C-alpha cells in the first residue's frame, strides 16, 4: 500500500486517507495512493467501485468527507484553483456546452488556463491534426458524435500541458486509431518533466499495456496496488493476466462461471 502522505513538491498526486460519501452511503473509504513523477497510474474497478468519485474529489467536483489531496505538494482542498491549474481532466461523461463549437469551447478553456494565443493555437492545431479533427472544430458540440466529443475533451485536458493528467475512462468511444494515438501521447507525456497520469478504466487490457502501476478499487476500498509482477506475486499466480488478478482480488471470479451458465442458450 502506498503511503501517499508526503507533501513533496515533485509528487504529482498524493491522496491520504481520502473518504467520499454521498449522504450515508460511502463511495470511497480511506484511500491512500501516490502517482509518482513519470508514472501512469491505473485505477481499476468495477462499475460503482469508486473510481469516478475519487477522480471527482481530486478535481474539486466532490468535497471529500475526510482525508487530504495534494497536487505537487499543493493542498487541493484548501488551494483549489492552484491545484486545478496543474491538472488536465477528462470526465467520464461528456457534459459540455452543447451550444458552443469545439473551437469556441477550447478558446474558453484556453482563456481560463491563461494561455497565449500562439501557444494555444499551435497546440490545438497539433492535436487536431493527430486526432483528425477538421470541420468538426467549427460545428456545434451538440451535433458531434460521442467519439469526437471525447477527442475535444482530451484536447481540452492537454491544451495547457499540465503536469498532472486525471483521466476518467478517457478511451471510451474513441476509434482504434485515436486509442493508439492517445496511448502513445500518454507514454511520451510522462516520459519528460516529472509529469504524472492518473487513469481510471475497467478495461484490463488497456491498463496492462499502459500503466506502470495499478490500484484495484472495490466498493471504495483499495484491494491491491503495485506493478503487475507485484500483484501476480500477491495472488500467487505466476502468469496470471491483469483480468484474473483483478477478479481474484475483488473476489468476483467466484460467480463468473455460474453467471454465464445461468444465461443458458437463450443468451446466444
Amino acid at each position: 500500500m502506498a503511503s501517499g502522505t508526503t507533501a513533496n513538491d515533485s509528487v504529482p498526486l498524493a491522496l491520504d486517507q481520502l473518504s467520499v460519501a454521498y449522504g450515508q452511503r460511502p463511495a470511497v473509504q480511506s484511500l491512500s495512493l501516490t502517482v509518482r513523477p513519470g508514472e501512469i497510474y491505473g485505477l481499476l474497478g468495477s462499475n460503482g467501485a469508486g473510481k469516478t468519485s475519487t477522480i471527482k474529489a481530486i478535481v474539486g467536483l466532490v468535497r471529500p468527507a475526510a482525508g487530504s489531496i495534494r497536487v505537487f505538494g499543493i493542498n487541493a482542498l484548501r488551494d483549489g484553483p492552484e491545484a486545478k491549474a496543474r491538472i488536465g481532466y477528462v470526465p467520464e461523461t461528456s457534459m459540455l456546452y452543447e451550444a458552443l463549437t469545439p473551437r469556441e469551447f477550447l478558446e474558453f478553456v484556453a482563456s481560463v488556463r491563461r494561455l497565449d494565443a500562439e501557444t494555444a493555437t499551435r497546440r490545438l492545431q497539433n492535436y487536431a491534426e493527430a486526432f483528425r479533427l477538421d470541420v468538426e472544430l467549427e460545428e456545434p458540440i451538440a451535433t458531434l458524435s460521442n467519439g469526437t466529443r471525447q477527442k475535444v475533451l482530451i484536447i481540452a485536458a492537454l491544451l495547457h500541458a499540465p503536469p498532472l493528467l486525471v483521466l476518467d475512462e478517457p478511451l471510451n468511444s474513441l476509434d482504434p486509431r485515436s486509442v493508439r494515438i492517445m496511448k502513445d501521447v500518454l507514454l511520451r507525456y510522462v516520459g519528460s518533466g516529472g509529469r504524472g497520469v492518473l487513469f481510471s478504466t475497467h478495461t484490463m487490457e488497456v491498463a496492462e499495456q499502459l500503466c506502470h502501476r495499478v490500484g484495484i478499487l472495490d466498493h471504495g476500498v483499495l484491494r491491491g496496488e503495485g506493478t503487475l509482477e507485484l500483484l501476480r506475486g500477491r495472488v500467487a499466480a505466476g502468469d496470471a493476466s491483469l483480468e484474473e488478478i483483478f477478479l481474484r482480488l475483488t473476489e468476483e471470479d467466484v460467480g463468473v462461471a455460474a453467471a454465464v451458465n445461468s444465461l443458458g442458450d437463450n443468451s446466444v
Partner: protein
Amino acid sequence: MSWREAVRVSGVAFTELALQAVFAFRQGNILPPGRSTNLVARAHRRVVQSKAVISFVLAVLALGGAAIIRQKLLHPTILGAIPSGLFEGAVLTGLLSLDVALLWWTGVQMVPTLISSGVLAVLEPLPLDARTLYRVAAILYLRMFDMPALTVLIVTPAAVALALGPLAGLAVLPGAFVAVAYALALSLLTGRFFLRRVQGSRGGGGRAVVRWAYLVLWLVPAFAMFAFITAAPAFFHALSILASQGPSTASTLLASAFPFSFALLPAIASGGAGSTAILSPTGTFALAASLFVYLALAVWSVVWLAGNVRSLLFVPLQPAVALPGTAVKLRPTGNARAVLTKDLRIASRTPGYAFLILLPILDAAALGLLTYATPTPNPVATSLALGAVTTAALLATFFGPAFFAIEVVAFSYGRSLPLPHRSIILGKVALITLMYLIGAGLILGFTLLRLFQPFTFGAFILAELPAVVGAALLELGLLYRWARRRGLAITNLYTGAWFAFVVAIPGLVMAGLPPLLFELSRASGTGFGLPVMAVVALSELALATPVAFGRGVS
C-alpha cells in the same frame, strides 16, 4: 397499420416530446426528484397549460376585436372619417395578423424542440411501416397546435358572428383557415432553418449575425400586439385619408394584400361592397383574384405539409454543407471576458437565453420609438424617455440571475477549471451592463431625434449605470452564496427558480431607487436630481460589491 395504431404510437411519442420540452434533460438539465409517473404527469400538465394560455390570448383577441367592431371603439374624429366596412376590415386585419403571429410564434419555439428531441428518430428502427411513421409525424405536428388552432378556427368566426351577424362569421372562416395554414407551414420552415442555421450553425462572425437576426425574428411576433396597438392610430388615420379619396390604385393594392383581403369579406357580407367605399369594379376583381391565390397557396401549404412533414421533421443536425477546414485559431482573453463571450455564443444558438438578452433591448427600442412617435409636449416626452431608460435598467437586472442557468450545462466540467467565482460574476455583470447600455443607447438615439438634449439623457444613463452594476452584483452574489451553501448547481429553473425571483427584488429596488429620487427631486423643483441620483447609485454599488466579492463567496 391503421390510424388508430398511429394515434396510439403518437401518444407515447408526445409524452417524450412533452418531457423534453419541459425538462430538457437531453440538453444537460437535471431532472427534478420524484417518481417518473409524476414527472410525466407534470410535463403533460404544463404542455396543456401552455396551450391553454396561448388559446386564451387568441380568444381574448378575437372577442376584443369583436367588441371594438360592435362598440366602435375608436376616436370619434377618426371613426367619423372611416366607412364602417373599412373600419371592420381594418380591425379584422389586425386580428388575423395577430393570429398568424401567435401561431407562428408557438411553432417557431416548439418545432425545434420536436425535431431535436429525436422522438421520431427513436421510432424509425421500430417495425412500423412508412405510412404509420408519416401519420405519427403528422399527428405529433398537429398536436403542438391543436388547441390554439381550433381557437382561431372556432372562436374567431363566433366572435365575428356576435359582432356582425352569422353570415359575417362564416365569411371570416376562410381567413382563419388561411392564417392557420400559413402559420403551420411557416413554423416548419423556420424550425428547420433554426436547427440548420442557428442551433447547428458553425462558428464565425458572419454566421453569428444570421443567428442573432433569426433570434430577433423569433421575438418579433411576441411584440406584434404591442406594435399593432402602437401603430393602430396611424393606420386608421391613413385609412381615413384613403377612404376620402375613393377607389384608387392604392386602395386596390390594399384590398389585395393579405390578410386585408380576407378581413374585408365579413364586412362585405354584413354591409355590402359599398360599405368599404374603396372598391371599384377593378378593385373587386383584384380582391377576388387575390383571395383565390391566397386560398390556393394555403391549400398547397396544407398538401405540402401533409406530404413532407415526416421528412422535414428528420432534419440532420449537421450543417447542410461540410465546409473545408481552415487554419483554426484560438484567441484567449481574460477570464471575465471569456465568460461573457461564452454566454453570448451560447445565447446565439439558444433562443431561451437569447430571449432574455433581446427582450430588454427590443423593449427599449419599442419604448424609444414610442417616445419619438408620441405627439406630446417636450416635458412629457422627456419623462417618457427617462422612464424608458429606467425600464431598460429594471428589465436588464430582473433577468440577470437567469444567466447563471447557463452554467448548469457543463457545470461539472466548469468547476474542474481554475475559474474563480469573481470571474463568473464579473462576466455576468458585464452582460447585464451591456444589455442596459445597448437598451439605453437605443432610447437615447430615438429621443435625440425628437428632443436634442444629449447632456441630460447621457448624464441620466451614466448616473444610473452604477446602480445597474450594483443591482447585478447584489443579485448574483446572493444567488452564488445561496447555491454554494446548498451545494446546488448554481441555479436552474427547478432547483432555484424561486430564489432567482426572490433575489431580483432587492436588485430591482436598487436599480429603481436612483431614478425614483431623480423624479422626486424634479417634482420638488430642487434641481439636484442628477447629483442625488449619481451619489445614491454609487453608494449602492459600494454596498453591493462585498456581497459579490466578499468573504463567504469563494
